[in-house]
């Protein structure tokens, strides 16, 4: 295989469903396929064969070429600490409340954990197709920039902010009296905290070399990746989708396609209403036709602006949750053939 398939887009648009559908379609076509997903709805997880929360790839009983794994960012971070820091520092890190604060709240950290898991499975070379349902980001191409962001953070940005200059020795950091800025922070927070965070940052820094090397490998995979952007026709997710077309070319190939989920048939827009139609039914079609027209305008504007392949997935009352209907979602579009050649 050439590289991973990365499924991106705003939250709530059906990214996980599209990732799963692509996975099922690829697996049914005979490719050994792995779907890495973040937070699937329960019924969808069950369809993928993820009855429990599996952090490691699990083969689907109904479709043995399909594997799936949940990305548990907290567990991944413990593993990252252990693989990049010396054993004693790693022990302190995974037990540190500061480590958990950073890995939980630093915007790019969930993205990084997912990217590192992705790289690990690509290294295994066990799958023909690896599909990543990218985690909800704080916006735009964060998944792609997370490795660099995080390496910079760990490598010294925090330190330099704290010390106002070069990276100090352990002793100098606590020389609060010598640095007026630190003295004020000390008054604000209490010196005990300053000291504890300082000690933590020393431990965190031991992961720097490992993180940097790994980040470079991850970025190599990104450059080989194929990205598809999922959206609905609503303004907020469309704006988010547009960001990928504007920003992604800086770090990887531009998106291969945009998938408009929950699309209504354009045929409704000009449908004739038979004379014997009851009023509620006629009114209902008029409403949905108006919405179909709005959607079409949004898609047309997007296509004209970004000159990209547009794939439409029809609006279903509930998201498909079995293998057949998942595959059907993608089969109609011909998208798989474009992504895997």
């Amino acid at each position, binding site marked *: 295989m050439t590289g991973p398939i990365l499924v991106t887009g705003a*939250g*709530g*648009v059906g990214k996980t469903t599209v990732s799963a559908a692509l996975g099922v379609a690829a697996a049914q076509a005979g490719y050994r396929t792995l779907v890495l997903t973040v*937070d699937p*709805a*329960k*019924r969808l997880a069950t369809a993928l064969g993820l009855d429990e929360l599996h952090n490691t790839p699990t083969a689907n009983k109904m479709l043995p070429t399909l594997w799936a794994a949940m990305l548990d960012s907290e567990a991944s971070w413990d593993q990252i600490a252990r693989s990049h820091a010396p054993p004693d520092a790693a022990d302190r890190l995974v037990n540190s*409340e*500061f480590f958990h604060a*950073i890995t*939980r*709240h630093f915007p790019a950290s969930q993205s990084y954990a997912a990217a590192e898991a992705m790289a690990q499975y690509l290294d295994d070379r066990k799958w023909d197709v690896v599909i990543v349902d990218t985690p909800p980001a704080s*916006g735009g191409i964060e998944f792609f920039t997370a490795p660099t962001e995080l390496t910079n953070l760990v490598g010294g*940005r*925090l330190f330099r*902010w*704290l*010390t*106002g200059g070069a990276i100090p020795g352990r002793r100098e950091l606590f020389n609060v009296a010598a*640095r*007026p*800025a*630190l003295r*004020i*922070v000390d*008054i*604000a*927070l*209490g010196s*005990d*905290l300053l000291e504890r*965070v300082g000690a*933590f*940052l020393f431990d*965190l820094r031991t992961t720097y070399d490992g993180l940097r090397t790994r980040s470079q490998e991850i970025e190599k995979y990104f450059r080989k990746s194929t990205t598809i952007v999922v959206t609905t026709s609503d*303004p*907020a*997710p469309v*704006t988010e989708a547009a960001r990928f077309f504007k920003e992604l070319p800086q770090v990887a190939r531009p998106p291969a396609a945009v998938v408009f989920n929950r699309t209504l*048939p354009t*045929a*409704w827009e000009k*449908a004739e*209403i*038979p004379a014997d*139609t*009851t009023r*509620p*039914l006629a009114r*209902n*079609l008029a*409403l*949905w036709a108006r*919405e179909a*027209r*709005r959607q079409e305008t949004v898609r047309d504007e997007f296509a004209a602006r970004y000159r990209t392949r547009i794939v439409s997935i029809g*609006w*279903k*009352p*509930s998201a498909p949750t079995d293998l057949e209907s998942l595959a059907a979602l993608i089969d109609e579009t011909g998208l798989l053939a474009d992504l895997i050649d």
Partner: protein
Amino acid sequence: MQQQLLLVTGKGGVGKSAVSAALAIEAARRGKKVLTIGMVEKRGLAAHLGVESLSYEATEVRPGIFALGIERPAALDEYLRIVLRVPRLSRIGPVARAFDALASAAPGIRETVTMGKVLFETRTNNWDLVVADAPPSGAIGSHIRAPKTVSELVGAGKVREQTRWMEDLMGDGARTGLVMVTLAEELPTVETAETLRWISGEGLIGVAEVITNRILEPLGARIPADLSTPIGAAAALHAGIFQEQQRWLAQLPDRGRELPYLFGVTGPVEVAERLADVLEQR
């Protein structure tokens, strides 16, 4: 809702910013002087209020409605000045940077700065109502818990001294309330129920209302037998979504007003105004 501060949250994509703007518009129509705050993500709120962007200084964006967007450096600067009681600290830059570095690692501090700005504005009594377009439900817990987290983390510093009044203001159900926005779909419903459970367990803030967004009216007719025609297909889709929505609505432990699905509405300002119309009636 009688509260003076509403924190509007919900899963990403449920229309949190649109509902925030609508709540503000509806209150302003009743003659209230309203401040809207974009706490983390500001573009959505700006669009629904019809402005390009939000600045850190409260600006009147529509008659009776002021808006500001929290920028962390500015909020940190203001916070430090208040906490340290220094009216003018000439070299706040290095202090802010050092503080920010600590705050990256120490849980609760950043969130306290952001929540602090919202609570400071509420405390000034300059506003009849403050509507905060808060972080999504995945991150709201760490913000609500932030003052408590900080007071557990730090010993006797000045930051800790500031946490008490924040907790008091947030916990006063007569003054502050959380508004949960949700859709009648599986993931938003599950996340809303989980968030509500967490909120009631922690007891740090009261829930003002659970607002469900994009709800369909009943079809009001039998679905035709022939689903191949647009009439039949549109009826089946409508009835199918309606049924699915009712199923998820029934699973919500707590339900307030319902907002309708807006067919064919394109502009974000029009969305906010139409939702405000409905809020006014219900």
